């Protein structure tokens, strides 16, 4: 069995998994208003670390997150020859070091933690996080690493704010995934980490079971989601088939849900094509904003908390369904023991990725 555990979240809502879970349970959001940050000096909703007290730069976020993850496992594993660290991120330190966005998390990270192997950076747009966990599974299954630590982080940099604004993709109010009045994304920043291993004994807290999946490209457009959801359908179908799972075996869908018109519509079409439209579904973007390369890991970790605590959280920002196909979007928190969830992500470049986590 492949285990996933030692999960950690660092977001504007809290520096630990516990703090974040407490806030999520109360349906609080990391999204606030930031003055003058827009292209025309307008204020924008953003889930950003408080610049005055906790200014987090990319490197420090990755370092802090790896530190936190190492405390949830046998810490000596960090300097094992068979431990691989994967960093998942899209833009890295782009605002500070445009020409070398990832240099700070290669050799300096290796040196600081005395890692035997150079960290591997996965930079695959918004599916980076889900894919990084799937690659971790691949490496452990093939015997190329005994334990893989996945650290995901991204910042709501001026670079990405300007970029998404140039695409008219940023909402002027906090994002509302799948809602009829949705107006686009809200950017967020965060870090999250997990450990993937076949050795249950390394985890201080009981891990969960990782049912790793696949990714599939839409082969359609680099910045527009497929109208048919083809890539997402294929990624989920292959992931479920790999573990012989049917719709009835799944209890919760933790989807991408960016709150753009096209993304949410694409997901609704794909979920209906997969026959999963009756399953409870949520997007976590209303809590954390869109954290880009961190999203896949952060949202897997957040959904793992729901599995551990027996609560399915409401899809924050959602009131009335605004997709052409039916979906069972969670409108309220629901206390419910459950066994298994599916996590999906879709992103620029046409990527779609999926994985599942279930109780042992």
């Amino acid at each position, binding site marked *: 069995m492949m285990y996933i555990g030692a999960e950690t979240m660092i977001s504007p809502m809290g520096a630990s998994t516990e703090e974040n879970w407490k806030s999520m349970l109360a349906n609080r959001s990391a999204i606030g208003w930031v003055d003058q940050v827009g292209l025309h000096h307008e204020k924008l909703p953003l889930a950003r670390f408080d610049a005055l007290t906790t200014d987090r730069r990319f490197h420090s976020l990755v370092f802090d997150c790896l530190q936190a993850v190492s405390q949830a496992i046998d810490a000596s594993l960090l300097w094992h020859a068979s431990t691989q660290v994967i960093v998942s991120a899209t833009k890295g330190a782009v605002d500070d070091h445009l020409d070398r966005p990832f240099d700070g998390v290669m050799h300096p990270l290796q040196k600081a933690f005395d890692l035997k192997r150079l960290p591997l950076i996965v930079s695959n747009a918004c599916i980076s996080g889900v894919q990084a966990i799937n690659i971790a599974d691949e490496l452990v299954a093939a015997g190329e690493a005994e334990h893989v630590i996945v650290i995901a982080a991204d910042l709501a940099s001026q670079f990405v704010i300007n970029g998404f604004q*140039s*695409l*008219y993709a940023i909402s002027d109010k906090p994002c509302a995934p799948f809602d009829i009045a949705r107006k686009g994304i809200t950017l967020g920043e965060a870090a999250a980490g997990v450990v993937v291993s076949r050795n249950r004994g390394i985890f201080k807290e009981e891990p969960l079971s990782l049912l790793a999946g696949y990714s599939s490209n839409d082969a359609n457009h680099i*910045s*527009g989601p497929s109208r048919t959801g083809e890539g997402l359908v294929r990624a989920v179908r292959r992931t479920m088939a790999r573990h012989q799972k049917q719709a009835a075996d799944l209890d919760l869908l933790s989807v991408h849900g960016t709150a753009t018109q096209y993304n949410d519509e694409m997901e609704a079409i794909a979920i209906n094509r997969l026959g999963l439209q009756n399953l409870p579904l949520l997007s976590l973007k209303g809590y954390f904003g869109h954290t880009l390369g961190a999203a896949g890991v952060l949202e897997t970790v957040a959904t793992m908390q729901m599995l551990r605590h027996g609560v399915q959280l409401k899809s924050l920002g959602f009131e009335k369904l605004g997709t052409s196909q039916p979906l069972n979007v969670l409108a309220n928190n629901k206390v419910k023991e459950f066994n298994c969830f599916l996590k999906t992500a879709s992103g620029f470049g046409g990527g779609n990725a999926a994985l599942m986590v279930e109780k042992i």
Partner: protein
Amino acid sequence: MDQLKEDLKHQIIEQLNLEDVTAADISDDMLLFDANGLALDSIDALEMIVLLEKYHGIQVVNPEEGKSAFLSVNSLAEYIRQKSN
């Protein structure tokens, strides 16, 4: 010759990085987004908005509004004249 329309053709080529296209290839009424025209796409439409702001000081708040204006060089010129009056 309508100078605004000539300028627009050069600005479109420059802003949209159109290779192998000269101003002479773009007729005033050519449908820019049509496969038989310049075959522009949705990202090009957003670049047109940048063009309007950069060269003509016109801010398009709602990209939907631009759609009818971007049909051809003729409609673009008309839109710019309307906005600057």
